[in-house]
């Protein structure tokens, strides 16, 4: 049996575990509360269910809880704070071919939104 098969259960186990708080991505110089306001203002909920946003809970994009524990954004971009903020602001530039469009947020707002998304979903 090739060794990769033997490792498979271990890999599954690894992805199922959330990183402990000190290893979670942290968004420097950003304000999660302002991020939540930005989420409401531009309507992220039209496509995504987001913890803490009572309405809307759109269904065509993935729910965004537990983002801090995910390995990748959009399934292929490394889950780093700077890349998440860039993806939130202009997704097609970071992950060409993604369904998510560029959103009307400035750089600071996209960092605030990233901070909020990293905080939720414990």
């Amino acid at each position: 049996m090739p060794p990769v098969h033997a490792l498979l259960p271990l890999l599954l186990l690894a992805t199922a575990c959330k990183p402990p708080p000190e290893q979670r991505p942290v968004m420097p110089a950003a304000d999660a509360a302002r991020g939540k306001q930005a989420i409401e203002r531009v309507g992220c909920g039209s496509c995504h269910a987001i913890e803490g946003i009572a309405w809307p809970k759109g269904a065509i994009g993935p729910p965004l809880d537990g983002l801090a524990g995910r390995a990748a954004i959009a399934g292929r971009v490394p889950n780093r704070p700077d890349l998440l903020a860039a993806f939130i602001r202009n997704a097609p530039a970071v992950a060409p071919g993604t369904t998510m469009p560029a959103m009307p947020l400035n750089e600071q707002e996209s960092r605030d939104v990233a901070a909020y998304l990293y905080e939720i979903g414990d």
Partner: protein
Amino acid sequence: MSPLISMRSATRMLQGWPPPLLDPAGPYAGSTTLLAWVLFGMGALVLLLVLAALWVALFGRAEQRAKLGGPTLIWIGGVAFPVVVLSLLLVYGLSLTRSLSGPIRGDEMRVRVTGEMWWWRVAYLDGDRQPFLHDANELHIPAGRPVVLELESADVIHSFWVPRLSGKLDMIPGRRNLMRIQADAPGVYGGQCAEYCGGPHALMGFTVIAHAPAEFARLMQSRLRASDASAPATPEAALGARLFQSTGCAACHRIAGTPANGLAGPDLTHVGSRRTLGAGILPNNRGTMMGWIGNSQAIKPGNRMPPYTVLSGEELGALAAYLEERK
């Protein structure tokens, strides 16, 4: 999700919370607001009088209590006072509310607003009271002058309510109710259906935008030109234009100057310049447009647009690109 929570979130997102009540922005809302304050004031005065009488009845001296139980006070406080006060309030209230619907000179700008489950059909009327421009869920008016609204309903009873511009008036099937609104200054004024009309009633919002008169005239001119339909500007939008016809959008939605001539849903000729989507509930951008087209049922459950989960992400983006060009 309770309807209250959804209304609260939708309202807070676009108009602030609490809703802008008792904050008039024109003469008709002014008189309604004044009436509300007078009623609150009188109610508070009567409550104080009753509480004072109650206090005397419970804790007062014996001779005071005896006066309270006598027939004189009952005739004065129980019959004469309510008859006089309520009659005066009735006359005052009716004369104030009369000013909301009349007198109508006949030369005011006229717009027909039709309540539909769960959105608003808007038709700007010319001098012969014939529609010359169609829109939905949003009304543009010149500031500083009265605008007459012909309020109708296509299905059930709705109620038109833009709190900062006027009082409420029901939209009743088979009737045409006239109402005047006026905004003293340019600005954006939120509205809400105020008569329960089923399902997503709480998510039936409306936006009035008042412009300086010169700017308003320019807007109407540019809208008339846009009604000749400009060609899609990008290859993505061109794909969207083809999809609009082939996937069935055009069966319910009209875009002037194109074969899309459906009348069941909101007119989309100017959807790209609207401030909101879904009837006053979502901001209008590429993302919300895609989310609404892809699955509006998750956003406004029970609305009459089916989910289009068959569309790929690229197709949703193309449709949104085409629609956001429709100014």
